[in-house]
């Protein structure tokens, strides 16, 4: 073989290798001589400023008709102070288990112009407290006034959807977001919480959907606000594949409903039979009505089967395995309920919901990623259950999955074939007045007038009861005692508990909405003070410390709550013989907001004195989960009214 042919062979081989290994994805610009950016003085108090933030998701054709997905992020950050250094001297690579790093570059650009490039040997794996593993590297040489520039490209397991958060606590001067793919693949891009028109062009045989945002302000965490839901966010999805003459829209809601139906009903006759055995063994088929069946099945499964959200193997979620191991992942658990409900003839629909603390389903934009949590909907009762939440029972589901859109998979039969079609509509929450956090207390001074005996009931119903049920049921005896102590201390200001009992703590008590009651008797010296011969009773502390919003920065976000609810407090004080209250009118607080004739929120305190009993009645209520910006001022007044009540001190004087 002569020299020339050898060269030919080598050239061909490398060309082939090039094709096989490295698809022609867009490369990030990496300037040879980066310069420090000059930053507007108005950003002087920011810890750091993001000069540019580029995100690119690129889909490429690979062999065997497969499409690969590459994700690139490229940031340049100007650092102003120690906080900024701390925030950017460690860079985390967001990487899931099934991704590979294709390329990574990072450098520190120092004020003197020197740059220090990242040595790839210094990229490490760390396991964080959240259980995830990250790649991490540290930026070298950073000082105030430096800039950090980095990008990485990872190859992900391909999904045709995505959600990118493009706002943070610090300002971003320019954000560029791109979805790139072969010309036949048409992606749609939609922005949330801000508006940025997207363009769609074909350049060099690549289709590019792009949007650019300038001067994104920093967003801070605020009380009663869902930061994750309020930040600027961009979502994308594959909408069309125009190869051939197809104009069919892809990844529609109907298609998702159909797939979900297929997955959750995927079990063999033998498996169905095994699940059916549970029905007869437990006598569920003999139960009188559908609600009795649903609640009995739910209670049984939640008491006897474990749910593990990390269990996602096909085998682990096969119905037979779930039945044997008594543990299921999301799919396996849904199959278990399905098989049983199917056997019992329960009328149900699958509903997928988002979590309004973070994201919601948008009817107009079919991002399947937002359909994260499966629940069952029962059309006859118009109620739900949450199979993946062992602590929630019919009709209660995790509150942030409600008051937001759901994807309802409505069953449809074509001959012997059954599938489902989609309907997007809100998942209603249970009425606000079913969720209460009440207090009934009786306060009596002892003979020496230096302490109080407090007999009180803390009463929880509905959504508000569930965290407490978790605490009482999942704790051991020591922890439970400690928890009772803390709860009592926060209200009665005393650790001196004479007796305590917890009523209706079981999760099954949620279905009839039986109140969870913590009933305690305490002796407390804390609420009573003396000034010479007068007694000062810090009655305001008897409702426990309240959230305050006294000294606030200008509000950026609307008000979000987990759930609407009522806090009704009835406090009876036995006025000691020979004493009178000098300032009962200090108890009067009336702060309410009315919208379209409905009092949607308020804090109202009134009292009456009958004989030697002072009866205080407080109704604090929030009917909504959401109050818009224009109602914030009023909302703040109401929150602060309850904090103001904490400061009420009654003066008891000897009668005249």
């Amino acid at each position, binding site marked *: 073989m002569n020299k020339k042919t050898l060269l030919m062979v080598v050239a061909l081989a490398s060309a082939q290798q090039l094709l096989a290994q490295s698809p022609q994805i867009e490369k990030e610009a990496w300037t040879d001589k980066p310069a420090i950016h000059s930053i507007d003085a108005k950003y002087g*108090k*920011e*810890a750091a400023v993001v000069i540019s933030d580029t995100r690119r998701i690129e889909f490429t054709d690979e062999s065997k008709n497969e499409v690969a997905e590459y994700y690139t992020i490229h940031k340049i950050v100007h650092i102003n102070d*120690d*906080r900024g250094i*701390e925030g950017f*001297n*460690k860079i985390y690579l967001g990487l899931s288990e099934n991704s*590979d790093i294709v390329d990574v570059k990072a450098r520190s650009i120092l004020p003197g112009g020197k740059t*220090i490039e990242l040595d790839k*040997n210094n*990229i*490490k*794996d*760390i*396991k964080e407290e959240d259980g995830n*593993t990250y790649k*991490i590297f*540290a930026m*070298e*040489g*950073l*000082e105030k006034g430096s800039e950090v520039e980095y990008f990485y490209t990872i190859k992900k397991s391909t999904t045709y959807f995505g959600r990118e958060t493009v706002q943070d606590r610090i300002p971003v001067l320019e954000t560029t977001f791109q979805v790139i793919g072969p010309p036949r693949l048409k992606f749609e891009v939609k922005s949330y919480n801000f508006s940025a028109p997207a363009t769609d062009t074909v350049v060099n045989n690549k289709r590019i959907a792009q949007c650019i945002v300038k001067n994104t302000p920093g967003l801070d965490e605020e009380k009663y606000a869902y930061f994750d839901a309020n930040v600027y966010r961009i979502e994308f999805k594959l909408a069309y594949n125009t190869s051939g003459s197809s104009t069919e829209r892809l990844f529609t809601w109907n298609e998702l409903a159909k797939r979900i139906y297929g997955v959750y009903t995927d079990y063999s006759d033998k498996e169905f039979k095994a699940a059916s055995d549970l029905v007869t063994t437990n006598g569920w088929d003999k139960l009188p009505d559908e609600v009795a069946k649903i609640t009995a099945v739910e209670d049984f499964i*939640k*008491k*006897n*089967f*474990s749910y*593990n959200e990390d*269990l996602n*193997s096909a*085998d*682990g979620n096969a119905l037979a395995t779930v039945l*044997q191991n*008594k*543990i299921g992942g999301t799919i396996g658990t849904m199959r278990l309920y399905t098989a049983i409900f199917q056997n019992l003839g329960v009328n149900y629909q699958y509903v997928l919901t988002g979590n309004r603390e973070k994201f919601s389903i948008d009817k107009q934009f079919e991002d399947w990623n937002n359909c994260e949590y499966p629940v069952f909907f029962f059309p006859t009762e118009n109620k739900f259950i949450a199979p993946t939440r*062992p602590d929630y029972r019919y009709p209660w589901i995790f509150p942030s999955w409600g008051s937001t859109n759901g994807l309802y998979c409505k069953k449809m039969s074509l001959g012997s074939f059954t599938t489902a079609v989609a309907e997007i509509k809100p998942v209603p929450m249970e009425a606000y007045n079913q969720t209460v956090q009440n207090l009934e207390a009786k306060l009596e001074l002892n003979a020496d007038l230096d302490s109080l005996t407090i007999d009180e009931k803390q009463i929880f119903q509905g959504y508000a009861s569930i965290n407490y049920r978790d605490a009482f*049921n999942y704790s*051991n*005896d*020591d922890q439970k005692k400690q928890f009772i102590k803390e709860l009592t*201390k926060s209200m009665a200001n005393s650790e001196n508990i004479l007796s305590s009992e917890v009523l209706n703590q079981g999760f099954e008590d949620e279905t009839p909405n039986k109140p969870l009651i913590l009933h305690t008797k305490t002796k407390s*010296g*804390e609420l009573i*003070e*003396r*000034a*010479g011969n*007068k007694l*000062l009773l810090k009655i305001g502390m008897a409702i426990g410390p309240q959230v*305050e919003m*006294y*000294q606030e*920065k200008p509000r950026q976000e609307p008000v979000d709550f987990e759930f609407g609810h009522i806090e009704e407090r009835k406090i009876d004080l036995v006025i000691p013989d020979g004493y009178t209250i*000098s*300032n009962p009118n200090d108890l009067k607080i009336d702060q309410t907001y009315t919208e379209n004739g409905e009092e949607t929120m308020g804090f109202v305190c009134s009292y009456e004195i009958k004989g030697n009993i002072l009866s205080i009645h407080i109704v604090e209520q929030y009917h909504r989960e959401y109050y818009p910006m224009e109602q914030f001022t009023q909302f703040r007044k109401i929150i602060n009214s309850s*904090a*103001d009540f904490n*400061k009420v*001190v009654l003066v008891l004087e000897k009668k005249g």
Partner: protein
Amino acid sequence: MLGGLACLFLPFDTVNAQSLDSIRKAFPNEKAVMLNHVYEFNISLKNNQPYVESEETQQIEYVLGTANMYSGQYGFSHSDFQQLITYDAYTRTPDDKKLKVSEFKTSIDKESFVFYDDVKQTTFNFPAVEPGAVGNLHVSWVNKEPHLLSPFYFSANIPAINSELKVTVSKDISLKYRLMGLDTSKITVSVEKKHRDLIYTFQYKNCPADKSYGDAPGFSWYSPHVIFYIENYKDDKGNTVPFLSNADDLYRLNYSYIKSINQQISPELKHIVDSLTAKSASLESKARSIYGWVQGNIKYVAFEDGMGGFVPRDAGLVCNRRFGDCKDMASILTEMLNYAGVTAYFTWIGTRDMPYKFSETPLPMVSNHMICTILLNGKYIFLDGTDPTCVFGMPSSMTQDKEAMISINEKEYKILKVPVIEKDRNTVTDTTWLELTPAGLKGKIKKTLTGYYASDIYGKLMYWDKKNMIQDMKDEFERGTNKFHLDTFYIDKKQPNNEIILSGEFSLPDYAKNIGNDYYLNLNLFRFYEGEKIDYPERKIPIEYNFISKRKYVTMLKVPDGYKLTYLPPSKTYHNNVFGFDMQYAQNGSWVSLTQQFDNNQLMLTSDQFEAWNKVLQNLFPLYKETLSLSKN
């Protein structure tokens, strides 16, 4: 109840669901019980070197409640030093079926260019968890670094019927051990000869579950555990080879980690030291500026990785990177100071998280931290590079009262105890001036902090959001009630000793009560220690403090014109051998004042002191309820 349990203990293989009822009786409120936890080590010689293998068996019986109340999730760890050989897990169901765990999850490196390899966690779920089910786990490892054998802890988050460490040692190896923890009286130790081996068995039957308290010191201070280590061994020629027999052996090992670094100072570092010390006349001022530069410019970033967890990086590299872990900080400090003519040494130390001493257990695990020690004017000064706001001359608070192993040279080292900084050097002096105005209570604050208190504030100031300082300062100043509103503030930094004075003006609506012709006002704007009564005698675990201190809070109220003081509460002082307070009321012209003073005299409060501590609070709390009154003339 626990005492009667001994009869319950059955040998490993006969424990089964039959005993569920008796276990329920013995542990009426526990959701799960460790039936058996056995950790076995086998230490032998291979190629004239100690060779260690280990295996662990755990059996957990689920006792009470329903499936969703158990966290069936379980796991075990492994690393380069403790490499995994085999593992196996299954559930034995109440009807005696064996269900094997088939899915294990471990974080694994996939990237070829990543050398990093630290402790990994493998997790799994026991299937079919219900009352009467028993989860079984068996894991084995080879321990690649026999200097680093982990201690065995007997207790877990559930009670254990049998908890046991078994160490089999071949005859040519000498093993040493030490029992540690608050109460080791329940641990039985036996040594048995078998063939040519010695078998050490450490057993704790009916070991109660751990209790946790937020204010407790590190686990190793109180949880019962065994530390065991190879003292020496005989090689094939019959020579005794020291391994970890005393501090000399440990020093030899430690020195091997530092011997080859910092051979030559880098030009950049040289330049930095030259410019920092150009104007310094004394060695002390040189040392101060170098320490200050490292504190300000080298950020603490820790990546522990295999042997890199022991070897400091070269000072020049640390300088270029502008970050490092504790070893790197010790390296750059030592290098810079020595170059500047200040005698500086690498130093190993254990933080106050751990109770260990080089003199008791000469093991690598005694130290989890490195600092730099300098010898200045005949005195040793400890410099911790990881604390960016520590005052020169003071050790970092977490190293107080701990033994430091100071590397003088290849052959020589010193073990010195780091001093505890006197309480007079860690002070808060806080004065509030209150005035009753028609718009409500208004006031001024001056708060002077020294020592560790000042360091803490300097640390916070570095990281507070500059856009929103008023909120952070409000939290720092808040008193009276949460309706405290900070109007202005000012920060006065007092160098070189890092004292700091914070001042501010505020309003405090709804605090003073005005009824008719009278004002009622409680001068206890602060109610320290409320809710801090110790659960005595139930609690046995000590309480840890970062430092000892003196605090003084003065609250002054101007009596408004036309009013007179009608009730001034009585003063009181109470001290016992543990703790105490002074609460003094005074009237001086038109000002009334309350002075509250508290001293903290110990770094750790132990259970024998809890009663006396509570006694102080019992005397203190009634004083918080004293309100003074003013009446119109």
